[in-house]
């Protein structure tokens, strides 16, 4: 199996996992929040109070999405750049 085939299969598998999850659990909330882990701790230890709070929090879900997207985008850009660089270098040889 060539790498190309292998890669396509891998991408396919990843998409499949995500799609199937969303398909089989249409009513799940898919909350990502760390919030309910906090809830769990406060349930079992009602006296515990976090003693430090975040220096800064994104003012809204939208801004949070922006920052996550930026993080993913910049990271992907660098990954693609490096792969492309080596691909080009190989061709030039």
């Amino acid at each position, binding site marked *: 199996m060539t790498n190309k085939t292998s890669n396509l299969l891998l991408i396919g598998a990843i998409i499949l996992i995500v799609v199937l999850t969303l398909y089989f659990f249409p009513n799940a909330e898919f909350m990502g929040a760390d919030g309910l882990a906090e809830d769990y701790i406060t349930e079992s230890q009602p006296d515990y109070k*976090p003693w430090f709070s975040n220096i800064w929090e994104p003012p809204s879900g939208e801004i949070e999405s922006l920052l996550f997207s930026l*993080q993913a985008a*910049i990271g992907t850009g660098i990954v693609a750049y490096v792969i492309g660089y080596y691909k080009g270098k190989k061709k030039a040889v």
Partner: protein
Amino acid sequence: MKKLLVLLAILSPIPAFSMHIMEGFLPAFWSMFWSVVYLPIFILGFRKIKQLLVEKPELKLLLALATAFAFVLSALKLPSVSGSCSHPTGVGLGALLFGPWVMSVIGVLVLLFQVLLLAHGGITTLGANAFSMAFIGPVFTWLIFSLANKLGMNKKVAVFLAVFVGNMATYICTSAQLAFAHPDVINGVTTAFYKFVSIFGLTQIPIAIIEGLLTVLVLNLLSDHVPMRFDFLSQYKKRS
């Protein structure tokens, strides 16, 4: 009543935290403890990177790639079978390319970004989170791959397993850290540990699988084009 709550907690699809302990959720003692434990690991990692860049400056680009990969994966909120979302870590790739020590620094970079800009994880929990994600995870990834390699396993399968186990090891470590800090009031640390593991375990499995698949994907792309002299990659290509 407590047992009922626990049962409900285990059975209901509770949103998982993405393996990072939230700001302020480690009592001061534990916060200090993990920070102190982690510091030498960080310093060692820092020295290793310096040494690496001096000896093999051509690795700079790959290092950037490993860092960027960790950045991307940490930003992906993936839905999971437990009905919640979680993030992969992305440190597996770097751990395989460079060894676990280097990741101790890179992981901290990713964590800092997420703490300062996304209120994800915390400064007081940085040591603990780094220990699980930037040390334990990479170490297990590295160990499992070395083992699988010795057993003659197909390289791609070995990578997948190594990254999968590393991801799970990270979250198990985090569960342990939380259990030490928040032992069950009646039954102590062990019970709390099992509770955390069982609550968050199911969520992590598909995430770890996806991370494994993504890592193999990127390694495939790299091994096609990056010159053979990069040790890990040349080995990877030889017997895939």
